[in-house]
């Protein structure tokens, strides 16, 4: 099949062509040799790489200078866009990815809980915010906690990727700012969140 049969066949012809070749005696040998060859070459099939052009292995990020810009773009996007669309789905698993983006959840938590706004829509978690009766299980709280943490993780990863690259100093600085912004909200909302820088 796709396992380098041709290699096996070449070796076989070499054996058959050799002057000392005795068909019957060597038949078992050939069978064992052939199957051994087949086996060893096929085991390498287990080392696969993603085939989808939309998936870029971490080791290949330097192949295209545009990639780093796109990774940085993701940190910006993580505050407002729920995920990668049909390619990879939402960044976090939640009942409705669009419902629980950082900005939407942040606005709900910061504004609906005050006199500045009231939301009459009956969706889950909203009424609790209007009436100041939310609990730790409020889905907006979970979402903003997980999403801000995720933005920080993306930023940490990007800062590590660009740390030693003199061409990407500005990108690195932007990521540091975005991480600081996420921590600002994190601390504002949750007081003493876990602190990770790598």
């Amino acid at each position, binding site marked *: 099949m796709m396992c380098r049969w041709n290699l096996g066949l070449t070796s076989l012809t070499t054996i058959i062509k050799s002057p000392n070749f005795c068909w019957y005696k060597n038949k078992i040998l050939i069978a064992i040799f052939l199957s051994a060859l087949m086996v060893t070459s096929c085991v390498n099939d287990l080392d696969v790489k993603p085939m989808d052009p939309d998936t870029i292995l971490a080791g290949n*990020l330097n192949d295209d200078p545009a990639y780093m810009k796109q990774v*940085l773009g*993701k940190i910006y996007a993580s505050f407002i866009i729920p995920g*990668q669309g049909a390619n990879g789905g939402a960044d976090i698993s939640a009942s409705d990815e669009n419902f629980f983006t950082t900005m939407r959840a942040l606005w709900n938590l910061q504004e609906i809980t005050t006199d500045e706004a009231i939301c009459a829509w009956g969706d889950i978690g909203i009424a609790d915010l209007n009436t100041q009766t939310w609990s730790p299980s409020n889905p907006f709280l979970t979402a903003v906690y997980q999403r801000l*943490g995720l933005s920080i993780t993306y930023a940490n990863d990007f800062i590590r990727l660009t740390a030693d690259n003199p061409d990407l100093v500005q990108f690195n600085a932007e990521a540091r700012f975005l991480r600081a912004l996420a921590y600002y909200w994190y601390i504002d909302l949750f007081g003493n969140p876990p602190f990770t820088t790598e």
Partner: protein
Amino acid sequence: MRIIRKNLKILLFLIAALSTSVGYAQVKTITGKVTDAKTGEPLPGATIVVKGTTIGTTTNFDGDFNMNIPNDAQTLAIAFIGMKNMEIEVGSQTIFNIALQEETFGLDEVVVIGYGQVKKGDATGSVTAISSDDFNKGAITSAQDLLVGKASGVVITTAGGAPGSGSTIRIRGGSSLNASNDPLIIIDGVPIDNNNVSGSSNFLSFVNPNDIESMNILKDASATAIYGSRASNGVIIINTKKGKAGAPMTINVDINSSIATPIEYMDVYSGDEMRKIALDKKGLYGPDSYNQLWIENTNWQKQIFRTAGTQDNNLSISGSVKDLPYRVSVGYTNQKGILKNTDMERLTGTLSLNPTFLDGSLKVNANAKGMLTDNNFGDSGAIGSAISMDPTKPIYDGNPNSGGYFQWSNYGANLGTPNPVEQLMEVDNKSNVKRFIGNIQLDYEIPFIPDLRANLNVASDYSKGEGYNNRPTTSPSVLTSPLWGKLSNFDAKNTNDLLDFYFNYTKDLEGIKSRIDATAGYSWQHFKREGSTLTRGVVDANHPAQVTENSSFITENYLISFFGRLNYTLANKYLLTATVRQDGSSRFIGDNKWGIFPSAAFAWKIKEESFLKDVKAVTELKLRLGWGITGQQDIGKDYPAQAAYILSSPGSFYLVDGQFLPTLRPSAYDPYIKWEETTTQNIGLDFGFVNNRISGSIDVYKRVTDDLLNTVTIPTGSNFSNTLLTTWAA
């Protein structure tokens, strides 16, 4: 042709038989005795009938009989419960001494196990064999339905009954949380991919139920471990019918028609009842609620269901051209759903050739199976809508904006229940699926080493599905949102290849009353899936182009395995089976790629012991003990261990430097993810009493799954998502 000829013979015979009895033809008297061939004892109460007539008698207490038969009677049929039926040519004889052979049920039956078969009496694992005689009969269009209720521990649940839809099979329940719980299904030696190609609703639909000869269900680990990597949830081995060498040509035609009708509807209020409630409870629902109701009495459920017919026609030809046994079959199924606008049309074809070469030492088994299916899925969401839709509203109100249908969206409620009739009838949701499975199996008895066989099996499984799911612009926005109208196309392709190679060595060692059956082999499998989806709105002057999904995927994985099995039988009483399998999966990386799955089983044929051998009441008694570990890697994702970045699809771009760019997101991954392992222990007792008239088996099992592959919520900041598919050790 043969059928006609055969039928003609029977017809002539019947006419002859009829005319003799009418004409009071001459009779002769015959006498005789019916005995048991083994013991010589007379058999009282045996029946003797002149074949094709109602003339007959039974033997007396001494096994003797005498009766008058027509002079031209040709054949006597003798029957006695527990004995094989016998037919005797009458000829000129008048005295018949008939010795009947004991009929032994089940003892010579074989069960198919992984990479081979054993006599049922010699099986050490928990295996149930179901042959075509035992299958469910009737309007059956999918292979799963043949098995419903036929084997203990096998639960088959239908997925809603849409035409052609599949069923969920669970053998002894599920053993995984997030990984697949489907059993491994092997058809003519080809383990198939349980993943449906897009557009197909049943991964087994390519097998015509009429072509199936037998299904063998392997339940415990000692039976399944030889399939290690994919066998945690049991194995079903399906063998299709084959031609037999030297057999005459047989043509089989099956024509089945069936009718299905909904027998009960959900009990909902009629229009009149709604109006009465609104009037009576004005205080509760407000004075205005009655005015919202219209004058109709629409039974929405009756509007969407129907009585539907199914046609299932099959033609098969089998026989043998010289030494080449063959079987060809064609099947056509046209199944209409009881939900309107749903149907399935399927054409299946199979060809199998089983020639032998080199004086029988090379057996070839070539199979090709093809399928073409056209599905019309309709919209089963209409069932829910029909239950909640207002019965006081008409089906049609003539509104041109909604294509003449009544729709809430025209009356100020954009999120209202869509008109069920429009939802069902105006959708265009169809798919076309093609599938081909071909395999060639070569079994070669190596001439210079007696009792050694080499077996090579090469197979390819290709399926392709394409379809669309469209809605007109007159559909309500609740069905098409955020688009205006909806056009959705998809296509998908699965390509799976397989190569199995094994040696089998069987030897009777009479000096030590032993028998060895050893198998060692290698298996290579490749699964590749690809597909794309495009969903967009209808474009016109007021509605610019809008695309909600434009995506494609391509993914693959490999499984490579080395396996060995040793069956050791001592004195035909003690049976020992040991298997070991090493599996490698491309889904895992580094050392975690490989898993080793051993099993051992012991069976004791208590019946063969001297103290039971002569006890006639006990036909079979066997104790089985088994233990084994099986693996699981079917987690839906092919690269869960690799660090990778994923580009976002259109619709999820981000504005960077004045330009919309797809962003690159790091994916959550677990480099340490590894095989899930299920350990099964099984104790079984097979028994048969009174010539196997009462028989059965009792199995007790315990199954423990370790290193569960599970999607768990993880601490924020520890990986690139809030959940991770990982190996979860308790």
